């Protein structure tokens, strides 16, 4: 059922029966990679942060992140900051809920990003993934694994954008550097 997405792949957010999705959840999960060293089993805590930036005609209009958990219009909600990750197998450590029907009419793209707030690069992160879930029935629509983590501290994960009357999701997987979403704005620009 789940589509394992690859970089750049786009999927339509439509239900099997042709109905449109009403609410989706962008979930983010990760675990800190075990550190080699004297205390080999000790892991360090890694704080990844999920953010969602709302664009209207390539202009950022609103942002949902750990300091602004709900977009002004109420359509995009962050479930709260998780500072350590590692909730468990397949569980979401942070999630952003999007009520697609209520997204204001002028918003045409929502970009999801991940930043390493504590500064570790993705080399030190294990089992990181982002996935899109149909919030109404809990079914996973798409999963994108952050494979091949490199020496960067942020990633532009995916975007959900209007296509016709419905919405489409595109996996982006663009590496970038920055502590919060503000640092990523130049990197987001080209993928809009």
């Amino acid at each position, binding site marked *: 059922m789940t589509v394992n997405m690859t970089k750049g792949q786009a999927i339509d957010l439509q239900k099997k029966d042709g109905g449109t999705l009403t609410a989706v959840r962008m979930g983010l999960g990760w675990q800190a990679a075990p550190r080699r060293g004297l205390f080999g089993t000790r892991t360090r805590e890694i704080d990844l942060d999920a953010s969602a930036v709302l664009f209207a005609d390539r202009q950022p209009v609103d942002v949902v992140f750990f300091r602004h958990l709900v977009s002004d219009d109420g359509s995009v909600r962050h479930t709260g900051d998780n500072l350590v990750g590692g909730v468990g197998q397949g569980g979401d450590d942070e999630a952003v809920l999007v009520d697609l029907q209520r997204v204001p009419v*002028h918003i045409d793209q929502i970009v999801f990003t991940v930043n390493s707030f504590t500064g570790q690069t993705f080399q030190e992160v294990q089992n990181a993934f982002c996935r899109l879930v149909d919030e109404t029935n809990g079914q996973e629509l798409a999963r994108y694994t952050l494979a091949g983590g490199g020496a960067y501290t942020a990633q532009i994960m995916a975007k959900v954008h209007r296509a016709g009357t419905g919405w489409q999701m595109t996996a982006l997987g663009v590496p970038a550097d920055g502590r919060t979403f503000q640092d990523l704005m130049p990197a987001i620009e080209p993928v809009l």
Partner: protein
Amino acid sequence: MTAELVRGQNLPLPEVRLEVRVRADGPVVAGATLGDEHGTVTGGERVARPGAPALPGIEVSGQAAADHRIAVDLAALPGAVHRVSVLLALPSGAGGPVRFGAVAAPLVAVTGPDGTEVARYTITGLDTESAVVALEFYRRQGAWKVRAVGQGYAGGLADLLADLGLPEARQLANTIDEATAQGPADAVAAPPPHPPGTPGTGRIPQGTAPAGHADEPPGATRTGAADAPQSPYGTPDPRSSGGVPSVASGAQDAATPPYADVPGPLDGAAGPHDSTPGDRTAPHPGPAPTAPYAVAPPSDAHAVAPPASATDGPVDYTHPHRRTAPPPPSPPTRPAQRVVPPAGPGQPTRPVAGDATGWSLDERLYNQVRGMFEDLARTTAAYRSAVDFADSRRERELDKVLSDPRERTGGRADAAREEARARHSRLVDQAREALDRDLAQLRAEADVVEPALPPAYARWDNPVWQGYQVPTEHPMALRLGDLHLPESTGLRIPLLVRLPLERGLWVDSGRTGSAGAAPADTGELRRLALDTATALAARLLAVHPPGEFTVHVLDPAGSGTSAFAPLLHSGLLAGPPATGAAGAADVLGRLTQRVDLVQMAVRGGAPDALPPGFDTSGHLLIVNDFPHGFDDRAVTRLRYLADEGPAVGVHLMLVADREDAVGYGPLLDPLWRALLRLTPVPDDHLADPWVGHAWTYEPALVPSGSQVLRHVLTRVAAARRIRDR
């Protein structure tokens, strides 16, 4: 643990022997129908009602009353019964109210055999309906559950019964009406229905029928079965034997008509409560098409054959139209934080009062109002943001046309400009459409929530104030007024603040900032400010239990005498309004001392160390015309009260024009900021916590010419006198 049900909610039942208690504002008729697996009631013999109150497994009271206890034994129901609907109706022709909207919301509670409450449900949101299905018990996978239904019928019992599939609904409704109208003579005394020799299972609802007479003095006519209405599940009654209660004949002799004994139902009633399966099945052979107790009713009033009574039924329902529940104008797509309960069977989903989380109905309504507040703030934010974006995009595009020399003139420029404007209006139209959809939904919700609000949350013109009862518990929040936005025409959100107040109030009697909202001259503004303050003080007095809230008035110039008159005349003030500098010093001194004392006790961890008889009630100090009559010492004391008072239940309400205090310079700015500013005329000065819109506040004023304030204060004063006696 009592579950407070909302409409549509269901709950598994821990027991099969239950009692349904009904409490209404005035007399209501209670009945119950037994439906098959499709919910259909096949005939009049499946309806327990006045005139035929007992059926296997269920027994209702024989007449209209404000309180009912309906005994239910789900295990004793015939196997074909899958649904038991408990219904309430207003008695017709009695000259009482003809619609539930005119009386306080009825309460139904389901209790277990030991009297512990399993669930309760307040039937809110009724309007023109005169009959309502309150609850239903239904079988689900072999177990029984209860569901709060609350489906009302403007056409009364006839429509209700017809909706349950009863073929002769109208006739039966007339029969019930007649039996009710004939009044107490037809009431059936409660049988103490213990089967002999089963003391262990004899925890039988004894008080069932007599509970209908709860308005009457208990000792007057009650006999054995009914003399302990508060504990209906007492130990087995030793006086009953052989299924025929020995007290029954005594009751008949001694009792005046309300308790005329009818032996038939008594005999029958033993059956449904019998816990022995063999006994149970013997007299009730399943879904018999005729009444199993056909031999029982000896009196004419109990002749239940529907056609017979239809012919001479005196009552005709002139409003046969069932109220059709209008679906909300748009499918509810609530923001994620609120949950819409599933609609009951056959009902369209529509907004329901109390549809939010919370431990009590008050808390649910509070949270619901807060949810509506947030929804309106956010949906308006979405609209404004879209319109702003459309505006700026149009400007950008028009600028581009202007700045391009090739396109500056000629047909292409015109076309480009036209296109920019069209794109603008398309987007604005879309945004407006989304806003209208949300506003319509919120309006539909407000339409059901407003009438369901308790007095503390309700507008003064809400009927709940007409049926006002002095509360026994502290309220959770208080309505200070209404809020609205320019976009939300016709939609007013109640401004509720939690009690005890965390900050003082300032009713601004000066000129307000907004130009559109300054119709009044200074004198008029001051008068309105005083009215606002009086209405708020009266509301605070009314929503606290008697004697738990005290109001002091400080009116140094004596300019508020007429406005404070309702408070003064009711005798609810701690004393007459203090005037002059000396009066101010005295009141402030006493309250300061009180705050200091309570603070010391609380901080010292010794709240018991307060003097004996120390009254722990909340206090409100109204100061009119601040800073008139205040010297520096008094101002300092007032600031102390504003800062320290709220934590120990001493609150402040200033009625003041800031201009009057201009002589103090910036020294009083922190005081003004610490108070919640209210205006006596609509003014947009309040911000919401989510998006920060400027909301227009309107005070909660008593409608002009209304006597509701006097009426309510009189009741509060009476309750306080009773308490102090």
